[in-house]
């Protein structure tokens, strides 16, 4: 398919370059940035009073900065209600942002400001940005066949029809590990893992550059989760995809992401390459998060620092650093001033007054996995080879 043709007629305004935007405290963007977000906010109004006027707002996302380089996977992690899903959707204007800039380096048109696009331009843009959803049940229209679901973008943009469309659908289904004849079936006939594959096929239909994976494996069983994670990795290599991987499972994020950004109550509190973040966190919340993960190893039972209290509500956050009421290292300044996200090491940003001075604990590097000790059962000594009962 001809990518230039897609954009014919769309007026994108002035071309700009990535150099125009900075993140954090004035840091220039890396050259191969695909998507960059600066000061992004999304507030939902709270109404009250006699006339139901807006009396406050839920600051679901309250000014976050991040960037994704072409071809990499950026993980966006945090606990439920921290705003990670909202951040992902607002960044590509599925939700209208309250404030902030979003720069996308469109392969055809060059860098564009997403927040300035008209609805028509936005629809063109979205051919390069797609999404994979968490819930394999609500993400597929139950009244459409799998083929029709995957074909939707082509039908909307009137790009393919007839034989060519059928071929393309068959090809897409094969790529995600389904069979072409599945096209005539309805979603209810498929298991959760298969539905997730259908969702992936739909996302890939228009050859997007950026795919937002919103908790793509958290609704799946462990064995199926591994299948889908492998598929995502294969597809990334194959089609040169860039992922924004939103998840709460830090083990999965460590496995699949190149860099990770951590959110807490609407803010980005830390962003670093995966290894760095997991082994040398520089924000106490990240440390606590990593410590809390139950490790699948009975020999590594530890009772590390536990966070007191619970995640505050974004409608009514605490003063200063939102984390200070739960932070074991909190000082007076933490109650007063909110620390900005700043660069503390190469490629490592953290929002903590004491990022450099605290010696925080990460996850120790594992050299050996428990299960590796055990030889595969098929390699049992021949003396123990099974005999027919």
């Amino acid at each position, binding site marked *: 398919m001809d990518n230039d043709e897609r954009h014919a007629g769309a007026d994108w305004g002035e071309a700009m370059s990535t150099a125009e935007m900075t993140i954090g405290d004035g840091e220039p963007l890396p050259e191969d940035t695909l998507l960059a977000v600066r000061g992004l906010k999304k507030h939902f109004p709270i109404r009250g009073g006699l006339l139901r006027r807006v009396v406050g707002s839920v600051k679901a996302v309250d000014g976050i900065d991040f960037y994704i380089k072409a071809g990499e996977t950026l993980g966006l992690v945090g*606990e*439920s209600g921290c705003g990670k899903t909202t951040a992902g959707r607002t960044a590509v204007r599925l939700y209208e942002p309250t404030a902030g800039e979003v720069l996308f380096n469109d392969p055809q048109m060059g860098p564009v400001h997403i927040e300035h696009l008209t609805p028509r331009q936005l629809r063109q843009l979205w051919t390069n940005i797609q999404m994979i959803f968490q819930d394999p049940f609500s993400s597929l229209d139950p009244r459409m066949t799998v083929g029709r679901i995957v074909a939707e973008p082509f039908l909307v943009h009137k790009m393919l029809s007839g034989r060519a469309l059928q071929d393309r659908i068959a090809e897409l289904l094969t790529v995600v590990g389904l069979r072409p004849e599945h096209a005539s079936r309805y979603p209810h006939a498929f*298991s*959760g*893992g298969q539905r997730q594959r259908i969702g992936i096929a739909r996302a890939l239909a228009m050859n997007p550059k950026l795919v937002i994976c919103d908790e793509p494996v958290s609704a799946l*069983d*462990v*064995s199926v*989760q*591994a299948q889908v*994670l*492998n598929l995502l*990795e294969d597809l990334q290599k194959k089609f040169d995809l860039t992922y924004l991987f939103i998840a*709460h499972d*830090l*083990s*999965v994020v*460590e*496995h*699949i992401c190149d860099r990770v950004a951590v959110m807490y109550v609407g803010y980005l509190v830390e962003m670093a390459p*995966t*290894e760095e973040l*997991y082994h040398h966190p520089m924000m106490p919340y990240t440390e*606590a*998060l*990593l410590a*809390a*993960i*139950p*490790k*699948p*190893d*009975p*020999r*590594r*039972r530890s*009772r590390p620092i*536990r*966070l007191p209290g*619970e*995640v505050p509500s974004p409608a009514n956050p605490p003063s200063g650093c939102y984390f200070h009421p739960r932070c074991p290292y909190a000082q007076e300044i933490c109650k007063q001033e909110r620390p900005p996200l700043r660069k503390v090491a190469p490629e490592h940003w953290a929002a903590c007054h004491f990022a450099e001075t605290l010696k925080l604990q990460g*996850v*120790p*590097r*594992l050299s050996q*996995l*428990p*299960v590796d*000790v*055990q030889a595969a*059962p*098929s390699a*049992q000594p021949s*003396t*123990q*080879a*099974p*005999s*027919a*009962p």
Partner: protein
Amino acid sequence: MASVPTASQALQSQATADYVVRVEDLRVEFRTSIGVTYALNGVSLEIPRGKTLGVVGESGCGKSVTGLAILQLVPPPGVVTSGTIGFRSRESRTPVNLLEYERMGPEMRHIRGKSISMIFQEPMTSLNPVYTVGNQISEAVLLHQTGEHKEAKERAIDILRKVGMPNPERIYSNYPHELSGGMRQRAMIAMALSCTPDLLIADEPTTALDVTTEANILDLMRELQQEIGMSIMFVTHNLGVVAQMCDEVAVMYLGRVVEQASVEEIFYDPKHPYTISLLKSIPRLGTNRKEHLEVIRGSVPDPYSRVTGCPFHPRCPSFMPGICDTTMPNVVYMPDSPQHFVRCHLYNDLANHQAVPSGVSNSIGGNGQ
């Protein structure tokens, strides 16, 4: 009072000396208009006294149903079709077969909440929204411990304090919706432990919670277990939680226990191919290797179909044609670790060496079809 059937007597030598609940050959069917689904196909497991048994498996393996069946609370159209559930309380120690009690009869009700209690996955939906937390806790206390309303309230506040509620007097008169998810789960735990039960069945108690909250709840459960000296049956699909919480682990697949062993053996010396694959398919923290995870082929078959032979054979990496797809494997005990058993044809030889009386393995699993 029923006793556990004689066939299991031989098992006694192999099993732990002291147990709270021993489930044998438990079968549960759901009879719906579309057809019959077999939720449990002969589950056998033992919950050691004062310890934690983890029950793991993927969705649809029957782990939650096992927990509900012990309390005889399998919702209709589910029916327990056979099996025994031997229960030994702290006081009497003589096993009784819970399945001989009437489902809603007075004996069973006496055990529920007092000797065996249960907490559920969704703290949001497991507390009644229209009654205060205190009302719901003292309800259980009034039922099993004291007739005095004032005393019940004091005890309820006590137990709320014990589960780490910051302001128990206030929480007592709060409604569930006024609490956060973690707080609600604490309230549920308080309710379940208000009568110091012998056994707590925890059905995925932390699945719906965030990691930091989960860690706190797990700590709390461990502490209270020490204090009360109860056993826990911990139903979960999270292997990390199992490794951190449990002493013993039973791995379930399609309504059967395919392997049971100590947590150490399950993680460092697993025998069943399913257990091994499961362990290999989870990403491990601290490795950051961007390579393929090992996968188990396919997915759990739909509950209406019945697989011949070993139910895991269509997905098994060690599949042996002609054996696995025709015959249901028997339970085999590991020679060097008497409490470790596995249900797999790979270990048939071991079974012969051991010369486990065939009656035993049959009583545990029976021959499936």
